Structure formats: structure tokens, C-alpha cells
């Protein structure tokens, strides 16, 4: 008998979260222990995961599958079904790393540390749940769980306009969630699936007509898309990032945006290929809009966090583009890019947070010469920026390269749009570095110092990931192509 690994991991996180909430001044130790334990479990899972188990009854098979009946009716069964494939594994790995990094970064959080760390863990728990859930109701449950701790993280520990930002975040994502839920339920009931299980929904959806698939895909695209966030429903993101505490920003950019991408791949692209094919032009338009818009607006920002937030929109646009091309290569690129963006944006947001509390402002035009005062911080900003603009040997490059190659392969010269925008992306990062890191020191308070040890360690973890996976992305790639999607006939 095999161990219910995923459930055990879930229990680890759940127990850790509860313990963290309960333990008062030792919360950070509990949180760190939980995160490390979770990371070890993920590593063990990755080590044991060699190949996907093959299709089962015409639907994708998943590794470490567990299924227990939850609610059973004669016409519908709702199960607790969890399982992983290469795509979700990579994102789980990202979750584990970001969790450790966030907990370490927030080591000296002084405002209700037990609640802060507990909420951080709860967010990661929700994300983990989303990545493993293979049942509509379970998926939705975890999806909604993520919202709550993030709402409080922004609303309690955030900046001056935190209430506005938290509410905006909640309303946007919640409206999208509802549309998504309606889409998922419609998918189940229109397809005549007798169960909420992913496998049966997948099989049943094959029989849907093109029109129905198109409408369902549209609903799901909107539902998942707001998390992406697709233009023009993206304005919650900059506000949320600017107001959120650093840990919140890290999780928001690193994980929450990935939920949208993952959901789209798992529940829309895989399940409704025909509907997707009908909507491909729309996906391209939205992706290009995100790429162009994110980059151009980022160029005009003076707040470091806003700049990184808009660059996130740009990068997630490339993710969407890679999904839209609908090929094995594109899918690989999308997942790879999500991982890369998760790590890189986390690093950049941590660096922004450090800039803010070291120098008292995040306004790029007011800062200058950080490299002299805080060389480690400057290095972090620099590596993050260079990784973000796609420098080879850093993690984004293989992802962007494959994404753009896949795009070129499918839509030819349209690839010039993201390519040219790469220059603009480079421009705003270089401009930011020139103004903020280099030049004569400006507005450097006398108390300014380089990073404390915990922030250095947190960023060093991410830095190591960026470099290691940048030079050897093969590990990630080999895991991702272990997804059932890659074994399916008919997938281009």
C-alpha cells in the first residue's frame, strides 16, 4: 500500500498553520519548521516522481492519486481527489521555496507575528491545495481559501491605502471566482458528468459541442484571467502590490498569479480544446495587450513596487501567449515561465521591500547611489532585474526563449511584438537601475545600512534558484514534460 503522500503534505501544512496561529512569540520558528518540512516533502515527492502513470480510461492519469468519496448522490458524486503531474509539481516546488523564503524574510515581523506567519502559511496551503485538487468542489474550496489570508495580509499589514487595496483585490478576484464557479458547474452539468472528478469531467467534456465549449471556455478564461491578470481587469494588481506588506507581495506575485495560469491550463485548456481553438484570436489579443501594456505602463512608474507589478503583467502576458499558441512547446514554456517569474518577481518584491524600509521611500526618482551604501541589496536588485529582462544563464531565459520560439512557430512575425517589447522591458529595468543603484547617493538616510541577515538569506535562496535553474533548466523541463498532457494523442 502506498502512502497518501499528498494528504500527508496537506496535513503538514494545515497542522503547521494551526500551530503557528496558536503559538505566540515562537510563531516564526513553527512557521519555519513547517515550511522546511514541506520543502523536504516536496523534494521527496519530486525524487519519487519518475513518470506519469499513463491515461486511465481515456482521461489523464495522475501520480500519487488519492480519491475518497465525500458527498455521494445518485446523480452526482463529489470526491476528495488529489493527484499531481509534472505541471503541478513544478508549481508546488515553487510554493515550497517561496514559503520558506517568505517566512525567513519576515523573520522580524513585529505586528502580530503569529497571525502574520499563520496567514502566510495558510496562503501557501491554499495554493498547494489548488495545485493538487482534481475535483471541482475541492478545487474551488482551495481557490477561495487563498483569498481570505491574502485579504487580511493586505488589509492589516499593508500600507496607507491598505483598506482600499484589500477590498479591490477581494472584489475583483471574488467576482472572477464566481464566474469561474459558474463556468465549472456549467461544464459539469452540460457535459453530463456524473462526478466532480477531473477525470470524469475531462471525459464527458469531449462530447460537448463547439459552441458550448466556446462559451464555457470564455467563462473560465475570465474567471482564471482576472488572477492572471488580464488587461483590462488588471488594475487591482498594482494597488494590491503597492499596499501589501513585502511577504504579501511575494506570495501575490509569486503564487497567486500562478493560480490563474495553472487553472487555465488544467481546467480550461486541457478540458476544452475545441472551445480554446475558437477563442485563440481573443487569447492572442489579450496576451499582446498585456505584454505591450504592462511594459509601457511600467516604464512610466516611479514607485519601484508598481514598476515590478506592471512588469509582472508583461511577463504573465508572455505566459498567456505561450498558452495561447497551444503546443507542447508552448505549454512547457508557459509553466517554465511561471516558475521563473515566481522566483524572479519574489526576489524583486523582497528587494523593493528592503529598499523601502532601508531608505524610507520606493520612489525611484528620489533615490540614487544605493550600490555604494548597500551593495548586497543593489546586487539583488540587479540580478533580479537582469533575470527579469531575460538574461541568459538566469532562469527566465530558457523560459522566454522557448515561449518566443513556440510563438514564432505558430504565428510567425507576430512574435516581433513581444520581441520588441523585450527592449522596452530592458529599458525600464535599466532606467531603474541607473537612477536608483548608480550615480551619486541621494536621499540616503544616515541610518541606512545593508540588509539584515534574514533578508539576505531569503533573497539568497531565490538568487541561488535563479542561477542554478538558469544554467540547468533541464531538471524543470524534464519534470514538466512528465505531464499527461504530453502523452496525449492529438495534442500538437
Amino acid at each position, binding site marked *: 500500500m502506498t502512502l497518501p503522500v499528498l494528504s500527508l503534505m496537506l496535513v503538514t501544512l494545515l497542522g503547521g498553520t494551526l500551530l503557528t496561529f496558536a503559538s505566540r512569540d515562537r510563531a516564526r520558528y513553527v512557521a519555519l519548521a513547517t515550511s522546511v518540512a514541506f520543502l523536504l516533502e516536496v523534494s521527496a515527492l519530486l525524487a519519487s516522481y519518475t513518470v506519469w502513470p499513463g491515461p486511465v480510461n481515456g482521461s489523464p492519469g495522475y501520480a500519487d492519486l488519492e480519491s475518497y468519496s465525500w458527498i455521494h448522490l445518485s446523480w452526482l458524486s463529489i470526491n476528495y481527489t488529489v493527484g499531481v503531474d509534472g505541471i503541478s509539481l513544478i508549481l508546488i516546488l515553487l510554493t515550497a521555496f517561496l514559503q520558506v523564503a517568505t517566512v525567513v524574510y519576515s523573520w522580524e515581523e513585529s505586528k502580530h507575528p503569529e497571525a502574520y506567519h499563520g496567514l502566510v502559511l495558510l496562503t501557501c496551503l491554499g495554493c498547494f491545495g489548488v495545485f493538487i485538487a482534481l475535483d471541482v468542489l475541492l478545487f474551488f474550496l482551495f481557490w477561495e481559501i487563498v483569498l481570505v489570508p491574502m485579504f487580511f495580509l493586505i488589509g492589516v499589514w499593508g500600507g496607507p491605502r491598505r483598506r482600499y487595496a484589500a477590498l479591490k483585490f477581494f472584489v475583483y478576484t471574488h467576482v472572477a471566482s464566481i464566474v469561474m464557479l459558474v463556468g465549472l458547474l456549467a461544464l459539469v452539468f452540460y457535459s453530463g458528468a456524473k462526478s466532480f472528478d477531473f477525470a470524469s469531467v475531462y471525459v464527458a467534456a469531449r462530447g460537448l459541442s463547439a459552441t458550448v465549449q466556446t462559451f464555457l471556455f470564455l467563462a473560465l478564461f475570465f474567471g482564471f484571467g482576472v488572477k492572471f491578470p488580464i488587461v483590462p481587469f488588471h488594475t487591482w494588481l498594482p494597488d494590491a502590490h503597492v499596499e501589501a506588506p513585502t511577504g504579501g507581495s511575494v506570495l501575490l506575485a509569486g503564487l497567486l498569479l500562478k493560480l490563474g495560469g495553472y487553472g487555465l491550463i488544467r481546467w480550461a485548456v486541457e478540458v476544452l480544446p475545441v472551445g480554446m481553438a475558437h477563442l485563440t484570436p481573443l487569447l492572442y489579443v489579450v496576451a499582446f495587450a498585456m505584454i505591450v501594456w504592462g511594459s509601457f505602463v511600467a516604464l512610466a512608474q516611479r514607485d519601484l513596487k508598481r514598476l515590478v507589478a506592471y512588469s509582472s503583467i508583461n511577463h504573465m502576458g508572455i505566459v498567456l501567449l505561450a498558452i495561447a499558441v497551444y503546443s507542447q512547446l508552448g505549454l512547457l514554456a508557459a509553466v517554465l515561465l511561471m516558475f521563473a517569474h515566481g522566483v524572479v518577481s519574489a526576489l524583486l518584491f523582497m528587494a523593493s521591500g528592503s529598499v523601502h524600509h532601508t531608505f524610507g521611500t520606493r520612489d525611484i526618482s528620489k533615490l540614487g547611489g544605493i550600490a555604494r551604501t548597500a551593495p548586497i541589496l543593489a546586487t539583488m536588485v540587479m540580478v533580479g532585474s537582469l533575470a527579469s529582462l531575460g538574461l*541568459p544563464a538566469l532562469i527566465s531565459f530558457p523560459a522566454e526563449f522557448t515561449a518566443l520560439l513556440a510563438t514564432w512557430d505558430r504565428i510567425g512575425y507576430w512574435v516581433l511584438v513581444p520581441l520588441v517589447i523585450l527592449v522596452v522591458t530592458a529599458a525600464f529595468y535599466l532606467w531603474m537601475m*541607473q537612477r536608483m543603484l548608480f550615480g551619486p547617493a541621494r536621499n540616503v538616510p544616515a541610518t541606512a545600512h545593508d540588509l539584515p541577515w534574514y533578508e539576505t538569506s531569503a533573497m539568497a535562496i531565490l538568487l541561488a534558484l535563479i542561477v542554478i535553474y538558469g544554467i540547468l533548466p533541464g531538471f524543470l523541463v524534464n519534470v514538466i514534460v512528465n505531464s499527461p498532457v504530453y502523452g496525449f494523442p492529438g495534442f*500538437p
Partner: protein
Amino acid sequence: MAVSFVLVGLLGDRLKKLEHGGWVAVGFAGAAMVVAVLVVAAEMLHPSHYSDQSFTWLQLPGSPGAFPNGFSLVIGVLVDPISALMLLVVTVVGFLVMLYSIGYMHADRGLPRYYAELSLFLTAMTGLVVSDNLLEFFLFWELVGVCSYFLIGFYYEKPSAASAAKEAFLVTRVGDVLFLLGIFIYFTIDATAGGGLGWAASGFKFVNGSTPFLAGAMGGSSTLQTVAGLMMLAGAAGKSAQFPLHTWLPDAMEGPTTVSALIHAATMVAAGVYLLVVASLFLGFTPDDRLAIVAVGGFTTFFAATMAVVHPDIKRVIAYSTISQLGYMVLAVGAGFAMVGMYHLFTHAFFKALLFLAAGSVIHAVGTQDLFKMGGLRRPMRVTAAAFAIGALSLSGIPPFAGFFSKDDVLSSVYTAAQSHPAYWPFLILAYATVFLTAYYIFRAFFLAFSGDKTRDPTLPHPHEAPWVMRLPLYILSGLAIVAGVFPFVPSFASLLSIGANGNVPPVFGTTDLILSALSVGLGAAGILLAQALWGNGRVYVLAPESALQPVRTILLNRYYMKAGYDELGLRLVYGGSRIADFFERYVIDGTIRGIERLAARLSGTLRQGQTGLVSDYASYVVAGVVGLLILLLFVAPFVLASVGGP
């Protein structure tokens, strides 16, 4: 064998990052040089030998267009005649520059950073040279770019240095993304057109065993292929500072002079030409591509030389001369004689490094870069003056210096090509005109700096000769600048230059060639004489204020306003556009959201009037709802269902 040595050298280069002194870096660079010499020797013993070792970096799934079965990307080391040649250039110049740095940089802060970045720079360039496929090439290409970004911005506290670094990165980035597109196109057309070759499965390597993978497979002249070639040209233009992406190079003088020497002679800008050579040998260009390359090279050659004529900054004069000389190389590649371009790159590396290091020695001694403040430096700095003179003579193409042989080959190869391609003629004429300009401007700089009795600006510190670590590279490079030209007459060395189509160097011997040579030497000599007449013996020629040439001078000094134009473009168009986008974002998109918010607030205010607290009012809402639902269910729903034919 030799290959693994190179790798050890590369890895070693990285190790010294922890070291404080530059000697470790120098040691590793020296080791790399020794390895390179061994590699070259091996290549000379086995002519046309290709040795390729690679491992799979990524195994990628398919994409339905060109790669239905997936493909692999490899990282490998390819040692062939051209990479051996280039390796020699890179490591020799790199080693000498490092050695020179010990003396030149000794007073600077951040030396560990300096040597680490310099070593990484050399590593990246070495990796680029031995790349065995386009992707790996691009990878190191970008690393070279980012290292130059760091090094140009080495004095990051100077706003101008930070700005120049950014400009260098951005402008080359424009070329890079187009280069990337070119890679995509090559991948696609060769994976499909040359499908039988299995190029995609082999990891897109340049060579298959000991022959170029795509030799003969391309040959076509399809639009796609032309575009691919143009994209290569764009990439090379960005890196090698060809028109219209040349603006960053003069500004890159903000870095330490040693870095300038390295960038100009062996690493950054050479990479662009090297790319064109590699593409020309392994991938092939269409006739349209070649015309474009000739046009860019020929025009840049002349264009850059004109700007060098008036500039007062010694480093910038040499910088413009680099752009101009790179134009020659590009010209030769475009004319179909890739190895001639390579040959000029080879000699140019030595005499340009020599010029820069000599200029660095001058700057080190007097602490200024303004030619008009110098003067009379010949006497206190004999070695430097001699070195500069050798470099200048070589640059001017005066026999028997190295520059003569390679430049002469470039010109005669373009002449040869022009026989069958009349469209090349104007660029050949420009190239000849440039010979004259080159000799003039470099000797203008020489006379301004060294002739006369004393410095023109008396406040300058008393000049002194450089220490031995700086002199030694000057000696070596002087020697090389003199003798490098005769290397091709050594048969085994010539074999390095005789691969690919039109590989024979020099292309023609005979009366025509002699006439051409005489013409170029004559033009060079005329340039030197003019410079001597105007600037020799400490004279300063001042253009009359009312002269008709005054506006020309202004334009030249302002670099044809291209930099200003780009800045304006960037500021007005891109940044302006982004401001508009930001405005739109804040007030239209977010404004709409706020509008909806406000509307909802008002609506809820209105609806709140209904919340009277009177039970009967609530009851009436319930009743109204029930009645409405009943109407919907009983009358509307059947009607709708009947009309759509649903269940």
C-alpha cells in the same frame, strides 16, 4: 584534449572572483592564452580540422510548425580554424590587457569587482568563440553584453558612466532581439527545408562531424532566408556598433581605458563580426543579405571616420576608428570573403589594442583625455609614443605594418566582388575615401598628443613613462602589430584562413592588385602628410570661424545629431507613449472602475430608501418577487424554451 584545457581555463577564470589581487586573474588569462596557442598549433598541424564535443542542455517537446518531433538544445565546444584564430585574439589581447590593468588600475577602488567582471567578460567571449550552435552563441553573446554593461558602468557613481552603460546595453539589445528572431528563422527553415538532415534533432549544431552541417543545404534565396540573414546583420550591427546602432560605442569610453581596449579589440565588438563570419560560413547569406551587409559596412566605415576627424577626445577618436574599421570587416564579409574580414579582425585586434593601451598610458600620465591640452609628450614618453606611432601606421595601412596587409585584402576582395555586383561600387569608393580619412585623423591625434615641445595646458601633471607592467604589453602588441600581417604567408597559418567559400587569402595577386595597393598606400600617405602639415610640430590648425566648413564641423562634432535624435526618440516617443499609457491606465481604466464603484454606491443609496424597516414593505417585496417569478416560470419560460427549442 585541447578542448578540455580551454574548459579548465574558463572555469578557472571564474574562480578568482574571490581573489583580491589581479595577479590571479592575470595568471588564469595567461593559462587560457597558452591553451589557445596550443589549440592554434593543433589546428595548424591538422588543417581544416573540426573537433566538436557537446552535451544536451535541454530536450524540448514539439511544436507543430517546424518541430513536430521536438528538438534538443545543446551546449558544446567546437574548435575549428576560425574559432582557433579568434581564440588566439581573445586570449592574447585579454591577457595583455589584464597585465596592463595591474599598473593602470592600481589606484582604483573595487578591484576585485573589476577583475571578476573582466574575467567573466573574457570567459563569455571565449565561450562565444567556441560555441557550436546558434543558441549557445546567443547565450554567451548576451553574457558578453551584460559584462560590458558592468564594465562600462564601472565608475557607477559618475552619472555619465551609468548612462553610457545603460545606452550600450539598450542599443545592443535592439540588435539582440532581432538576432533572436534570426535564430528562430534559421531554426525553422533549416528544420523544415533541410529536414532530411535532422538539424533540429542534432541540436542545431554548426557542424556535423567535420563538415559544416548546412554546407550546401541552404543555398536558397527565399524571403525567409533573406530576413534571417538581415536579422543576423542587425544583431551584428548592434554588437559591432554599425550604423545605425553605433551610437553607444563612443559613449562606452566612460569605462576604464583598459576596458575600452578589450571591448574594441577583442571582445564585445569583435563578437558582431565573428557572428557574421560564422553565419556566412555555416548558415549562408542570400545575395540580398550580402548587399545589405556591404551597404551597412561600407557606409559605416566612411560615416564613422568623418566623425573621428574633428573630435578632441583621444579615446573617442580611436573609438570612431574602431567603428570605421569594423565597417571594413563587415564589408569584406558582405562581399563574400568572410575570412578576409576575419583576417582584418585579427590584425585590427592587435593594433587597436596597442592604440588604446598607448592612449591609456598617456591618460594615465597626464590625467586628461583632451587632445588639445596635451602636446610634447614624445620626449617624456618615448615608448608610448613609439607604440602609438606603430599602431597609427598600422591603422593607416602603411606597409609593412599589419594593417596594410589586411586592409589591402579587404579592399581588393570588395573590388573583386564588385566586378560581378556593380551595386558594390559606391561602397568601395567610400572605403577608399576612408583610407585617407583614417590616416589623417589618427595622425592628427598623434601629432596633437606627442609633437611639440611641451603640454599646451600647463596645469597638467608632469608626464612620466608607464611602469613595466604597462610597458610590457605595449612591446608585445607593437611586435604583433608589425608582424601579424605576414602570418598568412606562413602556409600552415594560412590554412586557418582558407575555409569556406572564397577562403583563399589574399584573393588576387597581379597587376590590378598592385595598383589597388598602391592607391590605398598613396591615400594613406596623403592623409598622414596632411595631418603633418596641419598639426605637426605642435601646430594647432584652427578652422576660420567664417569658413564654409564650420557647419560641417558642428554637425560632425555633434555626431550627426543621431545620439540626440535617439534620445529624443526614446524620450518623446517611448517614454511619452508610456506616460500616455500610464495616464490612460490611471484615469480611463481605473477611472472606469471607480466610476462603476461610484455608480454602485449611488445605486445602493437609492435602494436603501426601500429598506424602511416596515415589515409590510418587506412583505410586499416578497410578494412582488413571488409573483414575478411565477410569471417568469409560467408564461415567459415556456415561450422562451419553445422559441429556442431547448428541453
